[in-house]
């Protein structure tokens, strides 16, 4: 199952993912018109920075998701076929338990109707809008194991460049 994953080294903190997310969740789905909509569309990915690193944070769609367990109205549930942790605004009562338990702070309010808002992984798209918008391709939409293989390859490449492999053999 594909997940939105991040190459932390190449995120420039440009926030293009935030804009693309808000546009995707607007009525018009067009940047120039979306900025004029009222209520304004909300993004569900947030670029945060600390320690010189930037990182786009959004719902990780956890398999064992604290928000689904904390939601007392059944508004948040995990779809076993898509793996997406979905949110049903019809059932949401705005108790914010999901916000309290999410360790990433990936759930926010809609600013208007006192409903929770979170990443829905763009159900109308093949690839989530944030991933398409990322100019450095720091955001990828990939099978977790394929991403892990990429990380292993990168590790080994830099390891051998630094002479680590040679020393190990000799």
């Amino acid at each position, binding site marked *: 199952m594909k997940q939105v994953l991040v190459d932390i080294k190449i995120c420039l903190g440009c926030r293009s993912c935030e804009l*693309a997310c808000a546009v995707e969740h607007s009525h018009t789905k067009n940047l*120039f018109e979306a900025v004029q909509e009222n209520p304004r569309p909300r993004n569900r990915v947030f670029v945060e920075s600390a320690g010189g690193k930037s990182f786009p944070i959004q719902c990780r769609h956890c398999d064992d998701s604290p928000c689904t367990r904390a939601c007392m109205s059944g508004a948040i549930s995990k779809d076993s076929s898509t793996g997406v942790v979905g949110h049903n605004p019809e059932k949401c009562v705005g108790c914010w338990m999901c916000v309290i338990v999410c360790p990433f702070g990936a759930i926010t309010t809609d600013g208007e109707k006192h409903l929770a808002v979170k990443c829905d992984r763009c159900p109308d798209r093949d690839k989530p809008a944030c991933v398409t918008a990322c100019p450095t391709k720091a955001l990828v939409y990939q099978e977790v194991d394929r991403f892990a293989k990429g990380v292993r390859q990168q590790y080994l490449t830099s390891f051998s460049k630094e002479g680590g492999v040679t020393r190990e053999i000799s």
Partner: protein
Amino acid sequence: MKFRDYTIDPAAASMLGRCSDQSIETAWDRFHGQQPQCGFGLLGICCRNCVQGPCRINPFGEEPSKGICGAGADLIVARNLLRGVAGGAATHVDHAYEAIEALELAASGNAPYQVRDEAKLLAVAKKLGIEVEGKTSAELAGEVAGAAYSDFANHSTKPMRWLTATAPAERVATWGKLGVLPRNPDREIREVLHQTTMGVDSDPVNLILSTVKLGLVDGYAGLHLATDIQDIIFGTPGPVFSEANLGVLKEDHVNVIVHGHVPLLSEKIVEWARKLTPEAEKLGAKGIQLAGICCTGNEVLMRQGVPIATNFLSQELALATGAVDAMVVDVQCIMPALQTVADCFHTKIITTMPIAKIPGAQHIGFTLEEVDARAEEIVRTAIANFVKRDMSRVYIPREKSAMVAGFSVEAVVKALACLDADNPLKPLVDNIANGNILGAVATVGCNNAKVTQDSAHVTLVKELIKENVLIVTTGCSAQALAKAGLLLPEATEKYAGETLKAVLTAVGKAAGLNAPLPPVLHMGSCVDNSRIGDLLKALADYLKVAVKDLPVAASAPEYQHEKALAIGTWAVALGVFTHLGVVPPVLGGPQVASILTGQVAEDLLGGKFYVETEPVKAAQGILVHIRSKRQKLGI
């Protein structure tokens, strides 16, 4: 057509196929490489004016709503726009300044430049209030050059003389009331660079007023000054037959393309190409084929009939023919990528200006004094390079279209005078008044990789002429329309509405053409937008109304350059409803966007911007505007 999303020009499309087969990268490939483009940039809400930044504003109403200094979205948008317009104005003013220097040389006698159009010299001198009686043309040329220089040495608060001498009096009064009359072009450009730095102007409205001022700098110290002086030196254009598109290149000729904007060198290249044709023949060529791209191409088209190779977006494709022996570039709109394409062939890129060099290109430095020697050297370099051409790699698309160009205001008036010698504008005005001509629209400006090349120009114009709207055109828009065959009498037969067709046929017949005038009149280069300003002024004066009351509009359907922002601002300041076919980077500032496109601009200036990316809808919007102006005039 495989590349139909890229271009409607069949020659460009076939070249794109060649490029794709040969892995030659083009602007379209790089455009795709740039996707998705930054939303903050598209909305104009990224500020890099100080090094605390870059700062950007959340356009969806959330934080951050202010930059580090406290600048909000409207302030950032207004500052960025003003800097863009200043950049655009700087290009035209710099261009015009060089033309003054050439005129000064011409006045000194024994120079590479002469006064070729004494009538224009007299007209310009009189407009400036210079006493002309008993003076030689050299004396007058010196005084006109002096008057032009005096604007650049104006240390007073008086407005620029070239503006007050050429702009409609009603406008000068309006601009005076708004406090936007420019004094000295260099000073105004300097001042706005100051005004837009960190911690100076915080008022978006004040910045927009300065933007209007810079639009006027562009219009009068750039466009108007350049056209006037170039006409004096090289002659005022008259109707000329030529051709457009890559099919103008010839396999058996030395092919030289002139590209850029300033005719001071390209006019001389034309002269030397004619002189050195025997040299080319000695090397086995049948002659020297010159062709132009962008406005330097338009300049030598208008005055010398040199054909157009192509327009802005397909400039690389001209080189991919493998048939170009030299491309001579001056300034503006010259893609840095040209050298990369030239490297795939024998083609030499020759840069000529001290401020426009390209690594890997051959630089033959242009100076006014030594222009003949340089032009000769350039043409000889091209001829020598002809023998290095690999004929097996040459592919020239067959497509080209005939065209009529050269419609200066003087030429239009001359054609109309065949109908009414005493009152040449009367037939035009009468036909506008009786509705045979619904109105007039100027299409101007560039190509933009965001738009299928030429499609917006051509679609918009076809929609408008069908509704009996007369089109005047300049720049790459004119070249797009030329390639599409719209600058021809046949286009009147084929596309014009019945009443427009009748008028154009009558004028054509009276002017001895034995055919209608084209429905689209090519008025020249981008600086020649001043000609359109002059035509509007003449019409308004004749009707005793203001330009803002005329049933006219302007459109930049596929613009890309800062110059287009400056020209557009001038047009709006002149009172013209100005359509933009590409969304300008201002929508992140709702106040700025609403001032520029709404009632405020219209109330203060009579004109406003109208943004519509869909050309058919844009044509409808323009027609609604024209009809409302007709209604207000009671016609």
